[in-house]
Structures are given as structure tokens and as C-alpha cells.
């Protein structure tokens, strides 16, 4: 699946999107896998209360199942308007 990063999450990880092969059942499982990768991921996902997540472009909670999602995006709280 495609994993997307926006705003400071993108900057901290150093790329806007990547293809991730995972068996993770929930978003939180995926976060744990990413955290274990490298320091930059651990830093970006250190405090998930500072993050939001969308599965296939719909906002969800971190305990949401991934199912057969095509796209998961991580980003800070939004500041539109």
C-alpha cells in the first residue's frame, strides 16, 4: 500500500510517500512497524496524539483496521481556512 506523509511529518521522515509492504492489522500496528525502522520514523511517530491519520482519504482513529486499504496518510492536525 502507499503511505503518505504531510507537513512536518513529511519533513521529519524525509519523503512524501512510499510503498510499504505490511501485514499490520490496524493503523497502530503499522505505526509500530514504522517506528522500528529508523530513528527518523521513531521521531516522527513519537507522540501520536500530535498526529492524525486517514485511511483511503477518510479520517480514522489509530485503532482502526487497515483491511485492504490502498492508501494511508499521516499528518499533523489540520490548519485550513
Amino acid at each position, binding site marked *: 500500500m502507499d503511505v*503518505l506523509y*504531510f*507537513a*512536518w511529518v513529511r519533513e521529519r521522515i524525509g519523503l512524501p510517500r512510499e510503498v510499504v509492504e505490511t501485514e499490520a492489522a490496524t493503523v497502530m500496528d503499522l505505526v509500530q512497524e514504522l517506528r522500528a525502522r529508523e530513528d527518523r520514523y521513531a521521531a516522527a511517530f513519537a507522540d501520536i496524539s500530535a498526529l492524525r491519520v*486517514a485511511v483511503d*482519504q*477518510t*479520517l480514522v482513529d489509530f485503532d482502526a483496521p487497515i483491511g485492504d486499504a490502498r492508501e494511508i*496518510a499521516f*499528518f*499533523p*492536525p*489540520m*490548519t*485550513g*481556512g
Partner: protein
Amino acid sequence: MRIEVQSAPFDLGAETTAFAEAQRASGAVVTFTGIVRDVEGGLIAMDIEHYPGMTEAALAEIAEEAKVRWSLEDALVVHRHGRLAPGETIMMVATAARHRKDAFEAAEFLMDFLKSRAPFWKREITQAGSAWVAAKETDEDALDRWQT
């Protein structure tokens, strides 16, 4: 109902006029416009990042909810992304309803939800460097009053 997400500037007057003139059943049109505000020490520019695809879908969903809840005849959202200078117009919403109370309330609802539920992120660039604008606690609180 029209949703536009674009980097190009838009003509606020022309958009407002076209929106108002297209109405027949509505007696009230309310518009809100967001402008890049200068900051202490001087803002050089504001960068607005967004999530193409989700942005349009989120805005359409919010506008649709407003339309149903306040029986709007029509709604318009225009939101820019990319680099903007102080004083530039970032975005606008317009609502049309039979009576003004619905048009006003729906516009406020649209703005409250757009601020913290549409995937945009602002970064301010000043002489001191650049910094992402943090979401405010009050933005989240603003959503609570619309819970019924």
C-alpha cells in the same frame, strides 16, 4: 454546490456576484473570506500544503452536511494552496439560503469544520525562518457547539 481547490488567485468579487446572481429560491447569500494575515516581525510568505483528492472529498462532505442541515439552496468553497503573500486571499465560502439565519450559521459551520477537518497545513515564512502553524485547541472546541 461547487468546490474549488487551486493554487491560482481567484476574483472574490466575480465569484460572489456569479454565486448571488445564480440564486432564485434564496433570499440570503453570506460570504466569508480568509486573508493571509501579517505577523509580528513581518511575514514573507505563507505556504499551504494539502492532500490532493482527500481535500476535495472532505470539503464536499462538509458542504453537503451544511446543505442538508440548513436547507441551503447552494454553497461554494474556494481554497488555495501553494505560496501566498501577506494580504492575499486564501479562501472563501459562500452560502445561499431562503433566510439569512441559515446562510450565516451554515457559513460558520463550514468555516469551523474546514479549519480542522479539511487536510490543509499552513507554514509561515519569516525572517527568522519557517514554522508550521499549530492547530489551536479552540479550533477543536469550535466543533463541539455543532454537535446535536
